[in-house]
């Protein structure tokens, strides 16, 4: 139970196509995260799966059964909403037990299941409070509790943590990870938070404009992005991109130096080079380096310092160095890229590998 | 113009004391940032300076003149609000020029100054739009423009960037830094964002419960926190704190090893040791280290990986390692602290130096 399959799913709002034919296989027990820029259709896709929106074209199968025409109640899924969507007039206990009550489960069994969920989520103390009397994190737990008790085939989360403050977000993130580990249930999770996506997912699905750009494990996406969009979308601060040219097995940056080009055998030729801030090191202006520039701004963050380096004749490049190193604003430095961690993109923004 | 002095300032809401006697000297042209946990009185303090709240006790001087009883209009300050507080019924041009208009500045001069501000903030294209038709970042710019044109003695910002998304926040942060550099006007800025505080401030004022915990430059606060509160408040992820004991010039962690204690001459004895995640390195379980533990969770973020290491018999410690290194969850490792970057705190949570 809990394997979900989308086949050429499309969603049209009137004449506006929001989901443009998505095929996706979610294995039973997998933790899948949808990320993508705002408006790309993450929530819509989740709601198609839940049944809250009608699928315009294509089919959705759960455990091999076509559920495309079933109402939400018939799909056996649970959902946790960004706004928590708790029932404000009910106690936590009733909130959590509501799904069971509507299903006609006997009272004792409801009580038992609700208490079990409360144990898992450490909600025991708050069971008789109204949602209003809870903090954000507690509300989030209640929302999750409500989803758990129904023992669904899969959990759907729509940006469940985005209303929490940073510290709480970290805590709840760990909790969700733990929950997934202990329940082993399929989870589909929408977020726009990098860190959540990277740390929680078994598989990240990067969406853009209603299409899947890439789907894969976090490390896959970070280390081997399929295209420029994914490369820049995953990783924070984002990847620096510079125009480059190729000669044989060497690349060169206009007006600067160059280095070895590893994919010389590939027919497609790169026009851009991408390198992440953390894969650049600072050298003296005259030592071995790929390029030189002037430090425009330094941002000291304690653990790290970010340098905004204006390359001569090229864009500004962001470099991350350790917080203990100091570089003066306005000084000239050389930059050296980690050659094993450079990315090349062709004119169609596709990665060359 | 722009030096602000607070003398024993207090604020009472009825019988609730929110600001508990604050002395603070803001130099002309300084960029001062108030940080502190939610509800500690940052906004209130800012509003006392602005004159929007009445000061209950103590005095506020601007450029040596006591302005405690003056209404906001008499203090010559500008304020940028978290919600921007743009006048929705006026065009951008009128919004920006409104303060000048109420001051009775002639039309041509208003136009001139407004255009100048628009140039600085790249608002020219939007001058005739209503705020509703602007994006968040543009609105923020308008709010700043409105503050600029009045050429105030100082700018007051109350969490100006908290309504923007991450990317925009970075951009606007740089913009404000640039603005401060070019105008050289005093700025007082409230935020709860670490990064903003660290990167922008000349001086960070850490508030807690209506009192100043420490005031100083970002590096000072990061490297030499006065007390445990500041130590844990500044820096992200936050400092790990472990109980420790001292014998002569050596400290030891209960059930683990120890190291050299640098402040042997100080009378106060430390009971806790603090070390930041970025100042811990991973060793094999048997190599030289300060302590050993089991990796509970690893969070892979691409550039970095965070390890949650459960120390034997002690708390869980967070460790930051490079994203390219891999440590298996569940493996046993040793941890080595950077001895030059350890902090010791006495029973009153004061740092020992």
């Amino acid at each position, binding site marked *: 139970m809990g394997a979900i399959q989308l086949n050429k799913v499309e969603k049209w709002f009137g004449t506006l196509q929001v989901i443009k034919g998505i095929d996706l296989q979610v294995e039973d027990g997998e933790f899948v995260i949808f990320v993508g820029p705002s408006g790309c259709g993450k929530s819509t896709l989740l709601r198609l799966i839940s049944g809250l929106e009608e699928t315009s074209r294509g089919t959705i199968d759960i455990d091999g059964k076509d559920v495309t025409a079933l*109402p939400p*109640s*018939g799909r056996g899924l649970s959902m946790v909403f960004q706004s928590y969507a708790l029932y404000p007039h009910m106690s936590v206990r009733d909130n959590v037990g509501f799904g069971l009550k509507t299903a006609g489960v006997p009272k004792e069994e409801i009580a038992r299941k609700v208490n079990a969920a409360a144990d898992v989520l450490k909600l025991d103390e708050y069971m008789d409070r109204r949602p209003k009397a809870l903090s954000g994190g507690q509300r989030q737990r209640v929302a999750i509790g409500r989803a758990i008790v129904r023992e669904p085939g899969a959990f759907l989360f729509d940006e469940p943590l985005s209303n929490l403050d940073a510290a709480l977000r970290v805590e709840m993130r760990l909790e969700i990870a733990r929950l997934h580990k202990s329940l082993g249930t399929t989870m589909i999770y929408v977020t726009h938070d990098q860190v959540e996506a990277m740390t929680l997912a078994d598989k990240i699905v990067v969406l853009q404009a209603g299409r899947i750009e890439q789907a894969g494990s976090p490390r896959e996406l970070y280390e081997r992005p399929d295209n420029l969009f994914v490369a820049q979308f995953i990783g924070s601060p984002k990847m620096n991109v510079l125009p480059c040219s190729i000669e044989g097995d060497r690349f060169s940056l206009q007006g600067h130096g160059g280095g070895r080009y590893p994919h010389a055998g590939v027919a497609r030729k790169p026009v851009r080079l991408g390198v992440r801030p953390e894969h650049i090191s600072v050298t003296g202006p005259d030592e071995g380096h790929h390029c030189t520039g002037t430090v425009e701004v330094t941002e000291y963050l304690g653990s790290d310092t970010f340098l905004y380096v204006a390359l001569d004749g090229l864009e500004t490049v962001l470099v991350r160095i350790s917080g203990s190193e100091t570089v003066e604003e306005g000084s000239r430095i050389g930059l050296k890229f980690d050659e094993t961690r450079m990315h090349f993109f062709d004119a169609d923004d596709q990665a060359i590998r | 113009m722009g030096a602000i002095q607070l003398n024993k300032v207090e604020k009472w809401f009825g019988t609730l004391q929110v600001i508990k006697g604050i002395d603070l000297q803001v130099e002309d042209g300084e960029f001062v940032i108030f940080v502190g946990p939610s509800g500690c009185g940052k906004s209130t303090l800012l509003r006392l300076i*602005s*004159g*929007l709240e009445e000061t209950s006790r103590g005095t506020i001087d601007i450029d040596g003149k006591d302005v405690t009883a003056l*209404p*906001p*209009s008499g203090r010559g*300050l*500008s*304020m940028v*609000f*978290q*919600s921007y*507080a*743009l*006048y*929705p*019924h006026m065009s951008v041009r009128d919004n920006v020029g*409104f*303060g000048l208009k*109420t*001051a009775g500045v002639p039309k041509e001069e208003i136009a001139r100054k407004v255009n100048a501000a628009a140039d600085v903030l790249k608002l020219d294209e939007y001058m005739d739009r209503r705020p509703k038709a602007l994006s968040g970042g543009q609105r923020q710019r308008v709010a700043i423009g*409105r503050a600029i044109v*009045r050429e105030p003695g100082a700018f007051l910002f109350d969490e100006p960037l908290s309504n923007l998304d991450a990317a925009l926040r970075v951009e606007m942060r740089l913009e404000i830094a640039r603005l401060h550099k070019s105008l050289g006007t005093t700025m007082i800025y409230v935020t709860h964002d670490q990064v903003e505080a660290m990167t922008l401030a000349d001086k960070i004022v850490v508030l807690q419960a209506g009192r100043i915990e420490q005031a100083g430059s970002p590096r000072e606060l990061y490297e030499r926190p006065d007390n445990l509160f500041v130590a844990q408040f500044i820096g992200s992820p936050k400092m790990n704190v472990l109980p420790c004991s001292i014998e002569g010039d050596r400290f030891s962690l209960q059930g683990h090893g120890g190291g050299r204690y640098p402040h042997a001459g100080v009378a106060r004895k430390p009971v806790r040791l603090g070390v930041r995640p970025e100042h811990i390195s991973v060793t094999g379980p048997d190599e030289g280290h300060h302590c050993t533990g089991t990796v509970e969770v690893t969070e892979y973020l691409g550039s970095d990986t965070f390890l949650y290491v459960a120390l034997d018999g002690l708390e869980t410690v967070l460790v930051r390692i490079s994203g390219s290194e891999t440590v298996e969850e569940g493996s046993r490792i040793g941890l080595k602290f950077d001895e030059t970057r350890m902090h010791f705190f006495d029973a009153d949570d004061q740092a020992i130096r």
Partner: protein
Amino acid sequence: MRPASILLTAVTGLLWGVMAMVVIGVTLTLITGEVALPQATAAGLAGLLGALVFVWRCSAAGAGGAPAWAYSAVVVFLVLMIASFAAPFTLPLSVVPVWQGLALIVFVAGVTAAIRLCLRDARFGPMSRYEREVIYIRIAKGIGFVVFTIIVALPFYVMVMTSLKSQQALLANPLDLSIDFSQGLSGLTRSYVELFTQFNFGRYLMVSAFVSVATVVLTLLLSVPGAYAVSRLRFPGQALLARSVLLIYMVPAIVLVIPLYAVFSQLGLRNTLTGLLIVYPATTIPVALYMLQGYFRGLPAELEEAGLMDGLSRIGVILKITLPLSLPALASVSLYVFMIAWNEFLFAFMFLDDPDIFTLSRGVVSLNSSEVPRQHLMAGAVIATVPVLVIFLWFERFLVQGLTAGSVKG
């Protein structure tokens, strides 16, 4: 096949058949003046069978051919004609044939549409509780729409139609609310013409308009500062003052009338518009103040603080920032106050005796108490109603917003 599903389908059809027949029959009667006795039984039967056929065709999915509702329509029509012996309204088909034909079309279309809307996803097979309830709710809503529309619209329809008829026609056949075009435009509007020429209604209209607008202006002038003070300024007794205003709700107007009558008479204010213009704002200010302060509270305080930082004084903030931002609220308060003043009856009735300064409400009462024919009374009612309805429809949005924003939190 589930008996329960079939029963649900059948009852749906039956209900709609009967409902549509009664409504259409009565409408036909009112429009034509001919007494059309609705054949409820036949209509119920027609609806019932129509519904069964509809669901049957739907269930036979992929059958192709004509859509299910077409079958249903045909069945409804045939059954109705057969079961009522070709006289669905008990009138011979030769009487008002056009209207009858129209009514028949409306009936068939209405019943078919209703069946289609209600039973869209129904089937004879097992249905979940969820699906059944969806159908119940559709039926209840459908009936609700019809019933509500009728009970709301019927009195207004009668009001307008009565005003267009002559006393004699009214007495002869109270059911005949058709428009008799044969009397020509002047005959139709005779009541109105007489009201405006002989009964001075033109003047009443002006007086009402003047009084209402003046009341609005006075109310706003007084309540805006008050509401602002209560909602934004801090001062001792704020909560008490804000709440005590509401006590006026507890005071019946009739209790005020008698003392005010005496005092106003002595001051020479009774039987003057000035008198009304003192009383009306007094009764509207609390409401206005209440609505406005709700709105003011909802305005972001930071906007006003921005104004203060921009160098304005409190008054400046009110004039330059609060008021322009409150235009919707001001509009809704104005509309509401206008409505109250325009519709006010008691004070006008008690205070005014001079027909030169009658308001419309007062004027209409005087139509009732004499031997004035009923169509005049109704025409008077129409004249009193139309302006306020027109203005209301124009600004409805504001009224809805303001009324609710002002008094309901959350």
